[in-house]
């Protein structure tokens, strides 16, 4: 089903397997076109000129789950979101959101979704309340309902005090909070969050993640979240689809995805040495079971290995060189490793260091590589 995958890996899901149970024949007017999934994509394609941004993608999102779309910039995440939000017309295939076809029943789809896109959908010169009011009015909310809803939403993000201040006076974190609740004015069944923590400081990032979780649990809103931050997907999402070059390369729960690489005899060890010397590094590097050695700081090494006897041979080699080993840790595989394993490249390659490191979140147990040896 999915191209470019090693055959021995168990890769789950495609849209056709969601077709159990009753099959509805789509009506012409506003009849839901499929079964009970919140979102269902079937061979969805989008081509810009010659470039296939989304290439035959099929999956489904269950009602009430937080689904993560994970991939590097330019992988096609945002294009998928835009097609599902009826902002971009698919070149081929079909998709149903809240049971309605995104092309034929776009109006119905729009009633049931909320969108937080990469760019903030807010007017800087208007106050928070005015922004919420505008969008409420676009969803035909009557005044009394709208006012109550606005107050509820503002208290959800503890911004009541700032309701009548202009957006332009807000910090980025405050803006994003308002931006998220703006997408909730119409009480959508499905909320699209396209890179919601991009460019936020650590505290705001945490707040937005917490808010995402609350929206999902308290209001039962289905959430589809795109991110290139592995940690975020790992922490929030019940299921994750990894996307690269417009194709879904893997789709499963976070723990199942990690199992993909635990069986491959590839391990990573973090080693702390009190007297780390260059000759120790080169001797470890010369071992046949060692694939790469990375020095993180004056006392820490990260060693990537293949095979079951790697651990012993590394320790032997270090001892022979008189090393004082303080700690050796076999690191858990991270989503990052999964991604690297599946796509052969790092997820964050095009993302500025600032964005990811300033978020202050470690995207796994391991820290960034600071110095690569040879």
């Amino acid at each position, binding site marked *: 089903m999915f191209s470019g995958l090693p055959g021995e890996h168990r890769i789950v899901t495609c849209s056709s397997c969601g077709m159990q149970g009753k099959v509805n024949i789509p009506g012409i007017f506003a009849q839901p076109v499929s079964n009970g999934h919140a979102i269902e994509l079937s061979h969805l394609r989008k081509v810009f000129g010659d470039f296939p941004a989304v290439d035959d993608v099929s999956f489904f999102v269950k009602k009430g789950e937080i689904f993560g779309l994970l991939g590097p910039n330019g992988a096609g995440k945002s294009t998928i979101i835009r097609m599902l*939000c009826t*902002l971009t017309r698919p070149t081929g295939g079909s998709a149903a959101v809240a049971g309605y076809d995104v092309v034929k029943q776009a109006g119905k789809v729009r009633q049931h979704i909320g969108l937080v*896109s990469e*760019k903030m959908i807010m007017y800087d*010169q*208007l106050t928070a309340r005015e922004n919420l009011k*505008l969008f409420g009015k676009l969803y035909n909310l009557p005044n009394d309902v709208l006012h109550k809803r606005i107050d509820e939403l503002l208290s959800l993000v503890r911004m009541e005090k700032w309701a009548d201040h202009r957006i332009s006076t807000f910090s980025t974190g405050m803006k994003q909070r308002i931006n998220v609740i703006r997408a909730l004015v119409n009480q959508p069944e499905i909320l699209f969050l396209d890179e919601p923590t991009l460019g936020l400081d650590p505290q705001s990032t945490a707040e937005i993640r917490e808010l995402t979780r609350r929206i999902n649990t308290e209001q039962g809103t289905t959430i589809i979240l795109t991110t290139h931050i592995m940690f975020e997907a790992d922490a929030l999402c019940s299921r994750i689809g990894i996307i690269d070059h417009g194709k879904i390369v893997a789709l499963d729960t976070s723990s199942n995805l990690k199992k993909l690489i635990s069986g491959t005899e590839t391990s990573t060890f973090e080693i702390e040495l009190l007297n780390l010397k260059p000759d120790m590094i080169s001797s470890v590097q010369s071992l046949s079971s060692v694939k790469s050695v990375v020095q993180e700081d004056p006392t820490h090494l990260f060693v990537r290995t293949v095979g079951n006897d790697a651990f012993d041979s590394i320790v032997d080699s270090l001892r022979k060189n008189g090393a004082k080993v303080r700690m050796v840790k076999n690191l858990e595989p991270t989503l990052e490793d999964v991604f690297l394993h599946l796509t052969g490249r790092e997820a964050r390659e095009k993302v500025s260091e600032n964005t990811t490191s300033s978020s202050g979140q470690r995207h796994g147990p391991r820290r960034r590589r600071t110095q690569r040896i040879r």
Partner: protein
Amino acid sequence: MGVRNVISHSFWICWKDLLEFSRSKLRLAMLVLMPLFMMVMVGFIFPTGNSISNTPIALVNSDTGAMGAAFVTQLKAINNNTHMMNLSSAKDFNDVKNKLQNSEVSGGIIIPENFSSEIHAGHQGVITIVIDQSNPQMSYTIQGVLTKTIEVIGEQTAIFNLSSTYHISIATATSLVTPYTVQSKGIIPGEPNYFQFVAPGIIAMVVMMALMTGLPHAISYEKEIGTLDGMLAAPINRLSIILGKVLAQTVRGMIQGFIILILAVVLFGVVIEGNILLVVFLILLTVFSFVGLGILITSFTENEETATMVMMTLMFPMMFLSGVFFPLQQMPWYMQDLAHFLPLTYATTALRKVMVLGADISAVGTEVLILVGFGVFLLAIAVPMFRRAMSK
């Protein structure tokens, strides 16, 4: 229900646009300043007919006889009343030439040596007017004014001579020397006034500019900052978006139009002869005729910069070709023909007829029909294009 929704949604989008606009003090200031500058600039810079005032003119009197001195006296007497010229004396032609080259004077009058003797001998006295070829506009005006003045002096001299020689009354002598006289009568009271001419055109133009610049800007800008996605993802008709924007820009354009109208009346003495409601109707019709063009530009331009460029390219010829500043009749025939393809031409003509000449609806029926035609035609192309552009 559908129509009610479209109206409600476009109202709220318009509300948002105007609210945003009103929050910017600079924009509000410009809303008033732009029409003011426009009026002042256009009213004072453009040549206002064929009169001159306090124009520096060099006067050379080489004549030693009585006739030269008498001419100078008469010239100065006329000038004391009209202040057309700022007379300074010069020695001879070369002196005048020097002064012209140094921009000290704009022209010269030379009374030759033989002026008195020629007249006494029964010949015409020749007076030379020196003009500046580097400034044709000014030269023509000075030449005209001076020639006229000198002719008047000549006539007065002739009448006086005739009256005293044949012992007839001044009135009889006048009718002998100048049997014809001219009297101008307009169809409305008052002197013609250049503001009267440009004010209707500027109103039409400012309304056009508000739509042509405002509309593509409003939509492309939202496309670029991403807020348009918010509206597109909401269950509203695409038409509501464009309608809301058009409404907001129309309000803006109308406000500017009225500021011009008030300025023209209060500061520049323009009298509105026609029905003010008809003027408002025509301004709204002008908006209608341009909406399609604005939407069209918005639909096929990818970003704000392109939209601005396309809009500027279209707007400048329209501004100058539509008879806003210069009468159409003064243009070469091919330009006049071209002007007939521009809606602004008809808007300007109709507004001028109503505002200046006090025409009623039946007198501008043709213009109204043509403007409606332009509006319908452009919208018929623009609306489907806009819908397509919004669902790429």
